[in-house]
């Protein structure tokens, strides 16, 4: 019964965070809301596994947690560089390429 109460609280949390993701004035608000939605979905999967008496759902929760951080960093990098394959600032090409031959 307490599992049902925790699942209900997590569903209320999910609804409020979805409202923030829809409202969010900047793109970073939406990314933050997506990150929190992933965390809450992870917790909801774990609680639902206990609620239905099948705690094997925890494998799915672990996979969600691993995907969540990768998704957040990938979206951030996409908005920073406009491309996921960009090597970053450290590896930028210099203006004067070295002369070939000689």
């Amino acid at each position, binding site marked *: 019964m*307490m*599992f049902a*109460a*925790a699942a*209900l*609280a*997590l569903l*209320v*949390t999910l609804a*409020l*965070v979805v*409202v*923030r993701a829809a409202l969010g004035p*900047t793109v*970073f*608000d939406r*990314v*933050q*809301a997506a*990150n*929190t939605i992933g*965390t*809450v979905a*992870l*917790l909801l999967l*774990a*609680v639902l596994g*206990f609620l239905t008496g099948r*705690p094997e759902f*925890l*494998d799915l*929760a*672990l996979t969600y*947690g*691993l995907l*969540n*951080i990768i998704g*957040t*960093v990938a979206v*951030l990098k996409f*908005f*920073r560089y406009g491309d996921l394959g960009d090597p970053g600032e450290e590896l930028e090409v210099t203006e004067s390429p070295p002369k070939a031959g000689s």
Partner: protein
Amino acid sequence: MKLLVDLLSWASLVIGGLLCIVGAVGMLRMPDFYTRVHAASLVDTLGAGFILFGLLLQAGFTLVAVKLLFIAVLLLFASPTGTHALARAAYERGLKPLLAEPENPSSKP
């Protein structure tokens, strides 16, 4: 003994759920992006920690408890990293934090 563990686990689950709701309300009502990040970190650390602790007490010494510990350690490392990267990206993009007005220092936001 069983009743004591059950009571502790139920209290942890209820407290974790309430903290999650508090964090979500904070995310909805805070005035500024950086304060919203602060409210969202409540869900990531305290809410998740209390709920996973409550589930851990229900699981006992089984493989399920080990998986719960893995999830807790993963959240503990990954979610502050993601939040830090997000706030830093927003700051470098030029998003200014909401500060008090210089001519009226008592109006703290």
